């Protein structure tokens, strides 16, 4: 396979998954022009990372829920509840910051186990269970906070979402440490890609042509290093980006390389077949929701840290942003299809659009309308693709 034919192959074979990346690049290009390059300025890129990290964390869990054919409407309330519990522990009772984090994560796991129990073992549709959860956990948030906001968090807690790792290795006008971390991450990525390519060759699986493989790595490296350089010129490496990066890597492996991930796809693709094949459907469904609860708690901690306090109305509508990120990122409404990386790009598309329109000073009402239309178009594209695939059979 020549490089050109290979490129063409990649684009045509996976229009659904590559389409999203093309759209992402186009949207970035569009808003870069519309904002005179402000979008990609160091300060603004840092802002985007800080501002949308918790939505992306939620989207990681949500895409797994959606792949399995469920939905979770409660994550916004869970974000509020876990943030509130953490605030009560840290602010009201003066406990150390890490205890607040641990208690919040425990609450998230408990919430996930509760919803997982009803979905997996009682068999109530996730839509209903999590709709109930949305009300239930919002109410509990109000109870925990006694209807008032709590703030401020101690400095260490604020650093979770607002802190930066910088200045450790110095640098003139840019932070060397940030660049080193980015470079290390890329080397790790390159090595793992090369090793999996070698493994595929060993098992006589098809691989892309070597020049194409190198080209892909170089392109990815260039984009990622440019992003890292911009961050390093601002405030350095955001701590929340490290959290997000680790979560994305871990869950990409979970969804693509583990039995659990395979079974999640199977349940979403054909529930009956999964059951007959001996997939432990109930157990998998249960853990999907426990995991969602855990990630909602992580997002809750990050959000409470960023807003430096807990409010009764925190996390309102977050579930819809997370769900939209998944669908824009190529997840199928009927389940069985979706990727963690896709959901991340979907979330970033939403983020870049909001951010770009804010920079342009576009009214909030128009922003909402544009985001609504983008979601609609993304799902329409998914359905169009499916019809085409169905007709081709």
């Amino acid at each position, binding site marked *: 396979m020549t490089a050109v034919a290979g490129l063409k192959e990649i684009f045509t074979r996976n229009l659904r998954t590559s389409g999203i990346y093309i759209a992402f690049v186009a949207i970035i290009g569009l808003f870069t022009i519309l904002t005179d390059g402000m979008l990609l300025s160091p300060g603004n890129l840092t802002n985007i990372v800080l501002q949308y990290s918790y939505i992306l964390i939620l989207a990681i869990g949500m895409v797994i829920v959606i792949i399995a054919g469920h939905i979770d409407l409660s994550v916004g309330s869970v974000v509020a509840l876990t943030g509130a519990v953490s605030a009560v522990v840290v602010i009201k009772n003066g406990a150390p910051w890490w205890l607040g984090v641990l208690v919040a994560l425990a609450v998230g796991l408990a919430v996930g186990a509760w919803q997982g129990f009803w979905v997996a073992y009682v068999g109530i549709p996730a839509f209903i269970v999590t709709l109930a959860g949305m009300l239930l956990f919002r109410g509990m948030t109000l109870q925990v906070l006694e209807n008032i906001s709590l703030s401020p968090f101690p400095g260490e807690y604020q650093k979770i979402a607002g802190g930066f790792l910088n200045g450790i290795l110095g640098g003139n006008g840019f932070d060397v440490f940030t660049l080193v971390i980015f470079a290390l991450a890329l080397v790790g990525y390159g090595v793992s890609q090369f090793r999996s390519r070698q493994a595929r060759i*060993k*098992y006589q*699986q098809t691989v892309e042509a070597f020049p194409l493989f190198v080209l892909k790595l170089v392109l990815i490296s260039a984009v990622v290093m440019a992003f890292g350089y911009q961050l390093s010129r601002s405030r350095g490496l955001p701590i929340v980006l490290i959290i997000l990066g680790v979560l994305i890597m871990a869950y990409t492996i979970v969804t693509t390389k583990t039995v659990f991930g395979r*079974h999640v796809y199977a349940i979403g693709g054909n529930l009956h077949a999964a059951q*007959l094949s001996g997939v432990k459907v109930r157990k998998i469904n249960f853990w999907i929701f426990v995991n969602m609860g855990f990630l909602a708690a992580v997002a809750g901690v990050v959000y409470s840290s960023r807003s430096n306090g807990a409010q009764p109305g925190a996390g309102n509508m977050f579930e819809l942003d997370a769900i939209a990120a998944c669908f824009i990122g190529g997840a199928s409404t009927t389940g069985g299809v979706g990727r963690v990386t896709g959901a991340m790009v979907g979330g970033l598309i939403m983020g870049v659009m909001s951010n770009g329109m804010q920079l342009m000073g576009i009214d909030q009402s128009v922003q909402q309308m544009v985001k609504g239309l983008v979601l609609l178009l993304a799902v329409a594209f998914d359905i169009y693709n499916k019809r085409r695939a169905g007709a081709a059979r």
Partner: protein
Amino acid sequence: MTGAPVHDGEQVRPMGATAPRVPLLAMKQITKRFNAVEALVGVDFEVYAHEVVALVGDNGAGKSTLAQIVSGVLTPDSGIIELAGEPATIPNPSAAHAAGIATVFQDLALCDNLDVTANLFLGREATAGGSFLRDGEMEQTTKRILRDLNSPIPSVKTQLHALSGGQRQSVAIARTLIGNPRIVVLDEPTAALSVAQTAEVLTLIERLRELGLGVILISHNMVDVRAVSDRIEVLRHGRNNGSFDATTASYESILAAITGATSYIKGDRAY
């Protein structure tokens, strides 16, 4: 009972006791009721190695119920199941699989969103450390099995929604060979297939027999049944209604047993 196996003169894989030949699966006096409906009444059924047994009958005759009992989806109300001569129970599908019984359900039970390899290994993935998939190894096994079956699948990386009906059927049949089964149950494998695809599937069934398996074939299609099976068992109203040697029995006599024009007396051959 049906007496001595019809398909003699072939080498049987040793299965515990050797002589006389022990059936891979023997079901005796199986009864199953759904509330007031008697789905099966005192049905006897046997499968030997290297044998394709067709289970035929009209709609509602109890074919699928019997197949579901074999594959562990249903449990009988009464009756005895013996596997290789040993009394056994098949309480659920995974028990059936553990006992070496693999089933291809009528709706195939495949995941359209997964590729051929993932479907073959679904529910019994090869893993490293208990949770990490060994994709390369699974793909190689898949290729070997498809080659053994002369199966017409272009690539093991193809997702199932891109395959034709016959190809999907051959994936479903290939799936049964994961984990070295002894008995394969096929529920209406040629329904809704074109002529060419049907021929492909019938070839696969013959390959299963050559591989030494006992095959239970449920079908409406007399032409297919007579083309591949060694023995034909007729069910009518949930009861045994005849056992035929597929090579000698006439189409009319089988049809008569199915429709009830001739009735079967236990202990006798109906032909």
